[in-house]
């Protein structure tokens, strides 16, 4: 240790002729102000580490708060999502789920969130939509996108700008109810021509797992075609259809109602998944910030202790030199 102190003192002596290079150091230090260490400083500056620690601590506070907010929002929306699960079941019992139906005009309704920082749910929804687009495309077929939410728009606009017909954002600002969603569904039905609507969303499984899901809603004409040609909906023929002028009218009402119900459930499930994903993402980032803070604290303390030790050695060895 005494050796090191001696070297340090030597270094200080060597450094003094270099003082003429001060302007250069000044230029550099104005660019990176934290890195400015006065020439011939005795101990290593801990200022940088201290600043870093402070910023990490602040980030941790923010992510913790976001986690809390997401957790309380999740609790609210989870019950509503679970309650809305009964809504699509009668339709599936009646019409079945027909993801493989082969039609000309496909409309992919991609549901995503408006805000980021919620893990991978938006990119999963986009990935699934792209895959469906590839599966359903072909000669004389047409696939269009209807996008709900900012994040899927940003990702899909890059490669399929031409096939996006409608784009709606800021769904989640107010708590969603069925009336809003049915107005939305009405808007979509009026503005696109479709044979099959494919709704892509993340189904909420638990706070850490979401299943990317596709729900298919067929247009009344396709329902009729599939029923008549002994297709996928052969059972529907045995049902007596009451009310309305014609069978087609009832079928149209039915499929529009089905779309609004399925969309309502999908929007709920996706909002619930978003909050769950955000909660777990924020949880892991506050944990990461904690780990980082621990490492920085260790470095900081170690440096501080080293400089104290150096100073002590200098004093003691100085005193010993005087005594002898």
């Amino acid at each position: 240790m005494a050796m090191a102190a001696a070297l340090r003192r030597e270094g200080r002596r060597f450094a003094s002729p270099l003082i003429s290079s001060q302007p250069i150091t000044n230029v550099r230090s104005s660019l990176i102000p934290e890195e400015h260490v006065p020439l011939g400083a005795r101990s290593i500056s801990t200022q940088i580490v201290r600043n870093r620690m402070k910023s990490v601590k602040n980030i941790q506070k923010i992510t913790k708060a976001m986690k809390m907010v997401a957790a309380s929002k999740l609790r609210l929306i989870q019950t509503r999502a679970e309650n809305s699960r009964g809504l699509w079941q009668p339709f599936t019992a009646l019409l079945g789920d027909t993801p493989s139906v082969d039609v000309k005009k496909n409309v992919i309704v991609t549901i995503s969130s408006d805000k980021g920082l919620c893990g991978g749910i938006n990119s999963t929804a986009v990935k699934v939509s792209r895959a469906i687009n590839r599966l359903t495309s072909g000669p004389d077929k047409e696939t269009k996108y209807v996008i709900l939410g900012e994040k899927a728009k940003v990702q899909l606009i890059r490669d399929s700008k031409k096939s996006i017909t409608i784009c709606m954002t800021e769904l989640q600002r107010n708590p969603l109810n069925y009336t809003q969603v049915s107005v939305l569904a009405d808007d979509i039905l009026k503005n696109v021509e479709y044979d099959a609507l494919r709704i892509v969303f993340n189904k909420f499984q638990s706070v850490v797992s979401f299943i990317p899901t596709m729900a298919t809603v067929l247009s009344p004409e396709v329902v009729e075609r599939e029923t008549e040609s002994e297709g996928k909906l052969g059972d529907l023929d045995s049902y007596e259809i009451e009310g309305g002028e014609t069978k087609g009218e009832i079928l149209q009402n039915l499929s529009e109602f089905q779309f609004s119900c399925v969309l309502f459930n999908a929007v709920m499930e996706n909002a619930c998944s978003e909050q769950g994903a955000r909660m777990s993402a924020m949880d892991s980032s506050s944990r990461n910030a904690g780990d980082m803070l621990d490492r920085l604290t260790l470095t900081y303390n170690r440096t501080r202790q080293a400089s104290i030790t150096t100073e002590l050695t200098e004093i003691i060895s100085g005193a010993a030199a005087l005594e002898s």
Partner: protein
Amino acid sequence: MQPRLPAPSAIPSKLTVNFVLPYASEISGKEVDMVIIPASTGQMGVLPGHVSTITELKPGVLSVHEGNEVKKYFVSSGFAFIHANSIADIVAIEAAPLDQIDSSLVQKGLADFTQKLSSASTDSEKAEAQIGVDVHSALNAALTG
């Protein structure tokens, strides 16, 4: 979702009812004796073994009969599917038990919408007012009848 069984050969003694709303599953998989559905063609009583039917609902009273107990709901609109395996699915947009409805507010609403209907100028306004009158008169009839 629970798988639906194929239609049994013998008619079961009870009818399984699912009654769902956007915000709740009011009745799920309950076995009852009979339901009376406000279909758009008129009241429709459904017993076990009913022929499979798809019907639209109109504003009216849905009553669920279970033994001697009768539970009545007022439903706004929706659809009902009766399957061959004696399962009835009822999907409504809004429903409330009949005893929770305030009759004085119904009278007031009915008067409001009748007045709106007479003063409506455009087709859509007229249609809106007509729906309001229909719902409120159905409510009124359900409460008084």
